[in-house]
C-alpha cells in the first residue's frame, strides 16, 4: 500500500480499522521528506522525533476510541505559527533561534486532536513576499518544476503538500499567501472568514488581514482540517463566536440554482489566456450542474492592491517594531547605546523586503501623510467591502482566477516589487473585506504548471464556498500531483 497516495479520509478508515498505525503513516512521510527535501527546501525545521512520539500517542487515542477525524494524520506548519519550544523563525534571521514559550491556539487544537507535527515550513520572511525568495533560509522550489517558485508567502506549506511531504499543512493568508501558492502548486488552499480561526500565537504581518488556513490535496481534506481549526478563541478579541458547522458534511450540497457571480474586473488584459480558459471551464462545469451564472461588477477591486499595500504595511510597521533585541530574537553586537542597538539589530535581522514594507508603513502613518495614505486606504477599503456586499445580494458565490498567471521563474520578479505585488492582484480583495476565499486546481498549462481558480463567498459562508469547490472538483477531475524525480 502506498501510504503517501492515500487521502486523509482513506487513512482515517485504515486507522480506524487498525490496518495501519499513525506511526507507519508518519514514518512514510518522514522517509518522503528525507528523500525530497534536498531538492525542495520546504522546511525550516524538522521535528521527526516529536512527530513519532505524537504518532504513538495518536495510536493510543485510536485504541482508546478517544480520537477524532484527524487523529494520527501528520501535518506541516508554516514557520510563523508559534510552537512551544520548537523554533519559530518566520524564515528570518531575526528569529533564527527563537523558541516560543507557548503554543499558538491552532497548535493546541492540532495537538489535542493527536496530529503529529512533521516540521515547520519555509516562507517569505515574515510572510512578506509571493515566492519564498525572501526567506533567510533560501527559497522553496515548486515540485512541478524546480526552476519555478512555489508561490508565497506560504510556499513551503504548499510545496510540502504538493510534493507529498505532508498530507496537510497550515499556512497564513494576509493578501493571498495561502491561495496564490495553492494555485502555483496545484492544491487546495483556504483563506477563511476573518475571525473564524484564532490568530493567537501566529506572528502577525497585518493584524486586520491575517488568517490561518488549511492546505490539502482535495476540497474534502481541506474541509476536514478547517473544521478542526475553526474554533472560537477567547484569547483573540477578533474571534467570531458563531456556531461552527462540520464543513465535511456540507460538501455534497447540490449547486442547482446556485447563483455564481463572474466579476468582469478580474478578466483583465494582463490575464494569461490559459488561466482565463481554465476559469471559464470551471464556470461552465457549474452551469452544467444547474448553477446560474451572473455577470457582476466589483468596481473598486482594481484599487485593492494599492489599498492593501498601505493597510498591510502600516500594520506591519507597528507589528514588527517589537523586534528590538531586548527580550528575544537577534541582537546586534553594536551596543553603544540602546538606540544604536535597536537600529543595528533591526538592520541586521530583517531582509530588504521586510525593511521596505516597514519603511512604507511607517511613512504612511507618519505625521503629514496619515490622511493621504492610511486614512485614504481605509476609506477605499470600505468601498471594496461594499462592492462585495452589493454583489452578494445578487449571487451566492463569486468565481475568479486566483492569479493572473501560473508560477513564475526564480529571479523573474524579485528585483521589481510592483511586479511581485501584482501576483496578489486577485487575492487581496477578500482579505480587505474579511470574507472567505479558496483556491483550487482547475487544470494545467501547456508548460505543465497548475492553474488555480478562486471561489469567494460572503462572510461565514464557508459551506457554500466548499460545496461549490467540491462540485467543480468532481466535474473537472484531479490534475494529479507532480512527478517529482528524486
Amino acid at each position, binding site marked *: 500500500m502506498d501510504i503517501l497516495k492515500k487521502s486523509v479520509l482513506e487513512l482515517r478508515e485504515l486507522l480506524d480499522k487498525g490496518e495501519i498505525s499513525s506511526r507507519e503513516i508518519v514514518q512514510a512521510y518522514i522517509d518522503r521528506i528525507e528523500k525530497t527535501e534536498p531538492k525542495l527546501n520546504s522546511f525550516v525545521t524538522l521535528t521527526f522525533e516529536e512527530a513519532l512520539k505524537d504518532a504513538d500517542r495518536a495510536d493510543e487515542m485510536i485504541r482508546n476510541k478517544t480520537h477524532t477525524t484527524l487523529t494520527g494524520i501528520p501535518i506541516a506548519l508554516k514557520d510563523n505559527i508559534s510552537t512551544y519550544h520548537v523554533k519559530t523563525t518566520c524564515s528570518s534571521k531575526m528569529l533564527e533561534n527563537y523558541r516560543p514559550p507557548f503554543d499558538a491556539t491552532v497548535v493546541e487544537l492540532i495537538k489535542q486532536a493527536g496530529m503529529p507535527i512533521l516540521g515547520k515550513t519555509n516562507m517569505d520572511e515574515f510572510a512578506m513576499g509571493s515566492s519564498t525568495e525572501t526567506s533567510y533560509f533560501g527559497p522553496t522550489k515548486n515540485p512541478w518544476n524546480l526552476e519555478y517558485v512555489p508561490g508565497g508567502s506560504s510556499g513551503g506549506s504548499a510545496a510540502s503538500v504538493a510534493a507529498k511531504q505532508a498530507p496537510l499543512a497550515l499556512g497564513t493568508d494576509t493578501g493571498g499567501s495561502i491561495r496564490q501558492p495553492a494555485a502555483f502548486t496545484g492544491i487546495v488552499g483556504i483563506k477563511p472568514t476573518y475571525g473564524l480561526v484564532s490568530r493567537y500565537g501566529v506572528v502577525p504581518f497585518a493584524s486586520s488581514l491575517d488568517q490561518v488556513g488549511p492546505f490539502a490535496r482535495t476540497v474534502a481534506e481541506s474541509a476536514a482540517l478547517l473544521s478542526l481549526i475553526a474554533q472560537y478563541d477567547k484569547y483573540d478579541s477578533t474571534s467570531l463566536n458563531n456556531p461552527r458547522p462540520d464543513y465535511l458534511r456540507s460538501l455534497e450540497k447540490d449547486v442547482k440554482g446556485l447563483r455564481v457571480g463572474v466579476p468582469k474586473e478580474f478578466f483583465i488584459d494582463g490575464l494569461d489566456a490559459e488561466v482565463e480558459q481554465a476559469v471559464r471551464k470551471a464556470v461552465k462545469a457549474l452551469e452544467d450542474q444547474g448553477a446560474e451564472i451572473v455577470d457582476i461588477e466589483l468596481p473598486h477591486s482594481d484599487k485593492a492592491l494599492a489599498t492593501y499595500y498601505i493597510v498591510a504595511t502600516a500594520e506591519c510597521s507597528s507589528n514588527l517594531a517589537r523586534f528590538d533585541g*531586548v527580550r528575544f530574537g537577534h541582537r546586534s553586537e553594536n551596543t553603544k547605546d540602546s538606540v544604536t542597538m535597536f537600529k543595528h539589530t533591526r538592520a541586521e535581522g530583517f531582509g530588504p523586503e521586510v525593511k521596505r514594507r516597514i519603511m512604507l508603513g511607517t511613512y504612511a502613518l507618519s505625521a503629514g501623510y496619515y490622511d493621504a495614505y492610511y486614512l485614504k486606504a481605509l476609506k477605499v477599503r470600505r468601498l471594496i467591502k461594499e462592492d462585495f456586499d452589493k454583489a452578494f445580494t445578487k449571487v451566492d458565490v463569486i468565481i475568479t482566477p486566483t492569479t493572473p498567471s501560473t508560477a513564475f521563474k526564480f529571479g523573474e520578479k524579485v528585483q521589481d516589487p510592483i511586479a511581485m505585488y501584482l501576483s496578489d492582484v486577485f487575492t487581496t480583495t477578500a482579505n480587505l473585506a474579511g470574507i472567505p476565499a479558496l483556491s483550487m486546481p482547475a487544470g494545467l498549462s501547456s508548460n505543465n504548471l497548475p492553474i488555480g481558480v478562486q471561489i469567494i463567498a460572503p462572510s461565514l459562508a464557508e459551506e457554500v464556498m466548499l460545496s461549490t469547490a467540491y462540485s467543480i472538483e468532481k466535474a473537472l477531475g484531479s490534475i494529479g500531483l507532480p512527478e517529482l524525480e528524486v
Partner: protein
Amino acid sequence: MPLEDYTIVIGLEVHAELATDSKLFCGCSTSFGSEANTQICPRCLGLPGTLPVLNKKAVEYAVRAGLALDCKINKFSKFDRKNYFYPDLSKAYQISQYDQPICEHGHVEFYVGGEKKVVGITRIHLEEEAGKSIHSGTSISDSDFSLEDYNRSGIPLIEIVSEPDIRSPEEARIYMETLRSILRYIGVSDCKMEEGSLRCDANISLMPKGATVFGTRTEIKNMNSFRAVQKALEYEAERHAKLLDSGEKIVQETRTWDDNLGITLSMRSKEEAHDYRYFPEPDLVPVILEDEFVTDIKNSLPELPAEKFRRYLEEFGLPEYDAELITADRDLAEYFEAVVAIYNKDYKAVSNWIMGEFMRLMNEQGIEVGEVKIKPEDFAAMLKLMDEGVISSKIAKVVFEEMFNTGKEPKTIVGEKGLVQISDSSAIEQIVADVIKDNPGPVAEYLGGKDKVLGFLVGQVMKLSKGKANPQMANEFLKKALAELSKNQ
C-alpha cells in the same frame, strides 16, 4: 517684574493605576513589589503572535472616574496604538486611546484659601503601563546599562488631562490631592505617589497679568509627592519669570524635577520628534457603552468628598477645617459617620477626638483607618463615659490609647485599670484636706489674694488622686475648704 505680576498657567496630566486584580490586556497579577519579571506572560512580555483582551473592570473603573469627575461618557470609544521605541515598552507600542477616549469634558471643584476653584477635565482615557528600567548607575545618564523588569507592563492606567485652568503651584497640589481623594473614594485607584500608582506631568507657562495669549511652556516630570508638585512648579515659575525679565526666551522642553537639589533640569536627551503614528489597534474591537451599563455605575457611586464636605457643614455644623480634613479620606469620613450615628450629641467633640488623638496615634503607628482596632461603638461609648462623669477627660486619653492598642471596650479598660473617676464627696474632701495640710505656703498665698494659686492646688488634688478625682468636684471642694479656712482666720 516680580512673579506676582505674571499669570501662571498650569495644566496637569495625571496618571492613576487602576486597582484591578489583573492587567489591562492579560491575566497577570497587578500586585506591587514582586520579584522582577515574575508577573509576566507572553502577552505583557510582547512575544510575537500574542493578542490583547480587554479587562472589563478597567473599563468600569474608567467610567466610574469619568462620572465622579462630571465627564461626558462616550458611547463609542476605541483603542489606538501609540508607536515608539523604548526598552521598557515590550511591544514597541503602547495601547492607548487617541481620538475617541472613553470620557471627556468634566471638571473638579476644590477650595484654595477658602475660595472655590473649578478646573476643567479635557479627557480621561484608558491605556497600559510600560515596564520599568532600573539603571546601573546613580542616574539614567551615567548608567552604562539598564535592567528591564516587565512586571508593571500592562497594568491599567487612566490618564486624566486637565484644561490649563490651574493658576498657582498651590492650586496644582490641591488639585492633585483632590483627584487622589476622589479616585480613592470611588475605589478605582490606591493613588500611592510613592509607589508610582499616581503620577503627574505638568505643563507650565507664564504670561503678564491681563494677557490672553499663553507663554511658551515647559513640561515637568518626575514629581513624586504632592509637596514635590508644588515645589517643582514654584521653582519653575520663578525660573520662567527670571528668564522673561532678563529678556530671554523660554525653551519649550521637558524638564525633570530633582527633589534633592530642589531644581528642575533639562532632560537634555535629543528631543525626539513626537511622531507616534497613532492608528486604530487592529487586535481590539471598539467599546460601545450601553446606557444601562453607565447608569448602573452611576448608581453605585458613593457620596463624593465635595458633597460630603457640604453635608458636614450643614448637617453636623462642623467648621470648614474639620469637614475638609475628615472628608478628604473616605475611610476616615465613614468612621466619623459611624461614630456620630451612635453618639449624636456633640459632633464637634467627635471631630476633635478624630483630628486629635485618633490621627496622632495613627500617624505614630503608621497605620490606616481600616487597621484601627477601636470599634465606632466603643468610640461612642467612651464619649458617653466622659459625659456621665465616669472618667475625666484626662483619663479618657489614657483609656482611648489603650482602646487604640488593644481594641478593648472602654468599660473593660476602666474596670481593669481602676480608672473610674472619684466622684465620692467624702473621698475628695479627704484628699482636699490632705492637700491643704501639705501645702501651707501656697494656701497662705491664696488666702492672701493670689487666686491663680488655685490651679496649682487643684493639680495637687489630681496628682494625689492619680488623676481620678472628678476635676469639677476637686475644684469646687477646694474652693469651699479654702473659703472655710479664710472665714475661720
